[in-house]
């Protein structure tokens, strides 16, 4: 096996002593078989998650960001999905090698998830309180029913559901989308997990509700001290919540770094493209600058760098077409990029961190 650059195996803060990561993923490969052939949804992904931090994973749809976390919990349908290889160390155990039973005991207890669409993620025929209580009871079978219900009420109160004593006996269809997502968060933090995975938690919601849900997420994180993985395609959300960022493209990690570093000096042309395609409040532009072309087919992926057909930096250089760029440190030890010519991006600042608003 080839040696894998331990992406992000660097302390989030280089001055303090290096803490042990709570979750450590190495060379994860996940495939899906479809009618047209085998899709490599996740292709050799490695990263670490440190206690208490919020790690953002950003990328277009189909970049493998959800699958990479879902497969850890055994939540991808198998078949058609298949975990080809890799390692995911959590509490001294490799999640990918655990028995179904052992993984089930971790799921929802130490590793909890908030899903994208609260409208479809709650069972329509069961009461909210029952669904939250089930999460508690399945991992703590000895707790009495009254206590479970009281805990459900407390959790609903914590996530800001008004009138929780009444709401706990209602069905999902009696909740609005925002309220349902609050209930989902309550369910996820019911057992005080050490890792919370939030998969596009605000995407399906109304813009006005999104900010509230972010507040709830922050509060939930403060309350449980869970390390959080925030999966999103929204760079704004990353800027708001994350400490570190992983940028994924075509099933691979292409850039890793602190939020401030990445926004100030992106060192991968794809990251630069993502930022350029965002609306900027400072510039008086008429058009956004999209990334040309489409994400590659994951069935017959191009040789060399997966991004080269769309890359403004590549310009048809042979190295981009032929040689797959490894993930390597640049500028500082905690900043990694997978681009042969990352140095050429030097001095090219990102946009989001530019002071925005009045006075500029």
């Amino acid at each position, binding site marked *: 096996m080839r040696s894998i650059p331990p992406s992000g195996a660097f302390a989030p803060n280089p001055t303090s002593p290096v803490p042990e990561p709570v979750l450590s993923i190495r060379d994860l490969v996940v495939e899906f078989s479809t009618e047209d052939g085998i899709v490599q949804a996740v292709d050799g992904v490695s990263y670490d998650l440190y206690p208490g931090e919020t790690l953002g994973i950003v990328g277009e749809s189909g970049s493998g960001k959800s699958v990479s976390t879902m497969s850890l*919990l*055994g*939540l991808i*349908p198998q078949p058609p999905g298949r975990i080809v290889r890799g390692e995911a160390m959590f509490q001294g155990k490799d999640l990918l090698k655990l028995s*179904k039973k052992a993984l*089930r*005991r*971790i*799921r*929802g*207890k130490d590793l*909890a*998830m908030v*899903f994208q*669409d609260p409208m*479809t*993620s*709650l*069972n*329509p*025929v*069961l009461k909210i309180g029952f*669904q939250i209580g*089930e*999460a508690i009871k*399945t*991992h703590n079978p000895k707790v009495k029913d009254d206590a479970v219900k009281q805990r459900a009420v407390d959790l609903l109160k914590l996530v800001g559901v008004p009138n929780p004593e009444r709401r706990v006996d209602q*069905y999902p*269809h009696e909740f609005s989308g925002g309220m349902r997502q609050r209930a*989902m968060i309550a*369910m996820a933090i019911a057992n005080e997990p050490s890792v919370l995975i939030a998969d596009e938690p605000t995407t399906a919601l109304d813009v006005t509700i999104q900010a509230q849900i972010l507040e709830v997420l922050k509060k939930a994180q403060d309350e449980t001290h869970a390390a959080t993985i925030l999966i999103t395609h929204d760079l704004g959300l990353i800027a708001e919540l994350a400490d570190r960022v992983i940028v994924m493209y075509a099933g691979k990690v292409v850039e890793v770094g602190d939020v401030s570093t990445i926004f100030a000096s992106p060192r991968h042309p794809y990251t630069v493209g993502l930022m350029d395609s965002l609306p900027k409040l400072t510039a008086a532009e008429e058009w956004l600058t999209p990334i040309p072309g489409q994400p590659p087919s994951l069935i017959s992926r191009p040789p060399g760098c997966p991004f080269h057909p769309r890359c403004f930096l590549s310009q048809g250089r042979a190295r981009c077409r032929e040689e797959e760029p490894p993930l390597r440190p640049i500028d500082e030890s905690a900043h990694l990029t997978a681009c042969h010519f990352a140095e050429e991006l030097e001095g090219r600042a990102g946009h989001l961190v530019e002071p925005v608003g009045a006075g500029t």
Partner: protein
Amino acid sequence: MLTYIIRRLLYSIPVLVATSFLIFTFVSITGDPLGRLRSNPNITAEQIHSIEHSKNLDKPVIVRYGYWIRDAVTKQFGTTLFGNRKIWPDLRRVMGHTLQFILSAIIISAILGIAIGVYSALRQYSLFDYTATTLSFVGFATPVFWLALMLQVLMVQIFLKWNVRVFYTSGLSSSVNAGHGFHFLLDRVQHLALPVIALCALSTATYSRFMRASMLEVLNSDYVRTARAKGLIERRVIMRHAFRNALIPLITVIAIDFGALFAGAIVTETIFTLDGMGFYFVNSLFASDPYPVMAWLMVVATMVIIFNLIADILYGVFDPRIRYE
């Protein structure tokens, strides 16, 4: 809930009135009940006129509809056109037999169909799933009457070869005095087994296919993923979160199938000469007697409406999103 049921019942009255008018006009205009008498050279035109007059057949359709409705309400559908036989006692007797027959078919098909469908969905693409799928496709393509014939052929061949009578191929009982208790029951089962199998086959195929699709859809739903993410044991995920949700839409399928089972009864009862509604209907039709045919259609329409009401209520019991105010 109670007000909802009452409202639905009240609403079915105009539906039934409209249906009764449609049935009456449809049966009246499609057949001349005296056609056979007219072609008989021994009956004079005067005799036919006097029959027409005595039976009110010379009146306009709308007037005859009035008479018919009056008879249906006050005299329990009145009498047959030929022979003046009272309709209701006959119809009530055959109704009892057919309801036994159809309800047992529904129960058996539902249990089998649900079990097969759920197991197929849980073991998708297994040998069992492929076999069940193949059989259900064959089931959809097999006419009920031919399946009934084949079952008879099979029993006859067994009887001819080994002189063993496993199931009877006609009638409801071996003799008028079929005995009591266990003997009566065994005799009944031996008589009803083949018709029930013939009637169940298509329904079982339908329910199992539907249940399989419904269960697969639910198993791939977001809320089942949520249930798994909570760390529930798989059995609980399937029973509590998937099965119940997958079952709800099947209620509608069974309710719609109820009407179709009467069609199945027409065929099976005719082949197995069972004294049921289907047999009664075909015989009345052969006799060109419009009144028992109309009464039959009315009774079936009423039962279908009642059954659909029951299905709607059950739906509300299982699905909290539906509330009848």
